[in-house]
């Protein structure tokens, strides 16, 4: 299928990219890896006036150590993420979730930042970013700002990145202490989107769970934190019973959609099961 005609810009610097966005007309789309944008354009559900391709923009790809955080460039591909030693050391959860994204071909083209800004509720990385309290560095015509993960995801396919702005990098704080992580994804075939998934980040201290952060994928229009579970786990004993009791609250406050993949009540049930599994694994149970 062939997309409708569009203008194409391939800037080489962030400034050029911002200019291209500003000059691109009413409907400008940023293309990172193109793994979601190109299909909808080919289906002609999207027909942007201009596509700004970031693939040649310098400095957006790669992972660096920045003291108390690691910084992942927005154009870092999923396959780069999978093989990156800093991610493996400080945020293995990202690699674990990234390994479940689509298939090998997609992971070679798709990018970390692109997946986050696309903000598909069934996408795997948003919930992970939420659970890791990542920060999003966004640049625009008026400069740079940093958005916490909790404010980044606004609605279906909608983030705090405004028109004319770009996500340039994501800062993931390094965690101190005895942390365990797990991404539990539930889907029907290997390359499919998540029906529901749970990202768990758990800190243990003296046989207790000192702190837990739970990100839920596809349990609403945006990724969510399972706050009730987090509260129940804080200070709880690291036992299957305690984890199970806390996980039973995973669906509290969620309003997942019903579609061909699952009805809402089933999604809510899955959230509790997957949360139990993810937390148990992250807590080393």
């Amino acid at each position: 299928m062939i997309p409708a005609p569009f203008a194409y810009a391939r800037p080489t610097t962030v400034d050029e990219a911002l200019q291209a966005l500003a000059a691109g007309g009413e409907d400008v789309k940023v293309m990172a890896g193109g793994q979601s944008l190109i299909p909808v354009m080919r289906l002609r559900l999207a027909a942007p006036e201009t596509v700004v391709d970031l693939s040649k923009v310098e400095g957006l790809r790669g992972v660096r150590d920045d003291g108390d955080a690691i910084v992942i460039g927005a154009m870092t591909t999923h396959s780069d993420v999978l093989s990156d030693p800093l991610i493996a050391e400080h945020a293995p959860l990202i690699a674990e979730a990234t390994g479940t994204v689509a298939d090998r071909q997609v992971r070679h083209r798709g990018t970390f930042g692109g997946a986050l800004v696309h903000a598909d509720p069934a996408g795997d990385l948003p919930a992970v970013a939420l659970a890791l309290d990542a920060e999003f560095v966004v640049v625009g015509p008026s400069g740079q700002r940093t958005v916490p993960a909790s404010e980044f995801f606004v609605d279906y396919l909608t983030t705090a990145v405004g028109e004319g702005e770009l996500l340039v990098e994501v800062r993931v704080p390094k965690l101190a202490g005895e942390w365990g992580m797990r991404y539990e994804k539930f889907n029907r075939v290997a390359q499919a989107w998540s029906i529901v998934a749970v990202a768990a980040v758990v800190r243990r201290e003296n046989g207790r769970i000192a702190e837990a952060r739970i990100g839920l994928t596809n349990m609403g229009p945006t990724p969510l934190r399972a706050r009730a579970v987090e509260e129940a786990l804080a200070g709880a004993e690291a036992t299957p019973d305690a984890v199970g009791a806390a996980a039973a609250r995973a669906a509290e406050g969620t309003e997942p959609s019903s579609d061909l993949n699952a009805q809402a009540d089933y999604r809510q049930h899955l959230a509790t099961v997957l949360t139990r599994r993810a937390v148990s694994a992250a807590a080393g149970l």
Partner: protein
Amino acid sequence: MQLENSFTVPVPVDEAWRVLLDIERIAPCMPGAAVDSVTGDDFTGRVKVKLGPINLTYQGKASFVEKDEVAHRAVIDAKGKDQRGNGTAAATVTATLKAEGSGTRVDVLTDLNITGRPAQFGRGVMTDVGNKLLGQFADKLAAQLGEGDAQGDAERESAAQKVVATAAGAVEEIAASAEQAAGNGAVKKAAAATKKAAASTTEKVTSASADSEAGTAKAAPAKGAAAKGAAAKAAPAKAAPAKAASARKATAPAVTVVPDGAPTPADTAPAAGDTAPAAAETAPAARDTAPGAKAPSTPPKGPTAPPARPATGAPLRSVPSGGPARSTAPAAPAATVRPKQAEPEPIDLLEVAGGAALSRYAAPAAGVAAVVLLVTLVVRRRRR
């Protein structure tokens, strides 16, 4: 798919009925819609839908196919085609009005039919969008009907506007502070909880809102105050955050906002959970704690508020929903024909979400607050 929306407006049924039949006022209630021409009971126009990268523009016509004066039942048939050949959208909207106390209960049943490519996906996204769209339509319709046919009382207007201005100003500050409010997460959670509760019955709403620490229908009040002021649009947006913030922090700012606009509390509280916010208009900020809880049980009453009636149906009316045309409307009251929008504003999902969220989750205002907060933040950033 069939979608149902219900709400109560504080105008007599005959008056609401007259408004309902006024195409020029009703058609623009469809979010993202622009009316191109009106001929008798038929009108043509466009609806833009935007969802992330997806853009659809449906162009078509609509007409009243039934106007049952006795039953107060009107049926609008709308059909449109996507400009890129992506299929069609058709909706049969049946609105039924029933007198309820001194107000009117409105049931809107929409049979929405989407064909072509957008229908060829198993993910429920398009349906959710349709749902939100209709939710917002109901919001706006509620606002429109709530205004009744004589929006024009000048005094009333100016009074309302003054209130609004104040509210808006105050709220703006609060919103700013809300931005930093750590409580955000909690508020969101509360919002979620309340959303869910709102979905069902009144008593659920009650308990839910009780849970949500925020307690309350704040957006509504601002709205009520705003009546239909130009500020209405901005005001609620900010007001909500105010509440959110207040939930966690101090209620003070909210309180300041309210007094002016706030009519006497007590009265309202419609029967339905969804209308709870309407109640809020009455006792807004003042009661950030338990308000919603009571609201539902009392039958709706005409608000006692100050200058005439504070555009109450308003609970639903939401933040961005207004759009430019709308914001001017109040200023140019009554008979004035709503200025037609030259180009339809695309339905930004933000808008849809915000509006729908308000309408759907109105009662437990905490939910509203969270959503609105997000919206506000984004909107501000975009405008920077």
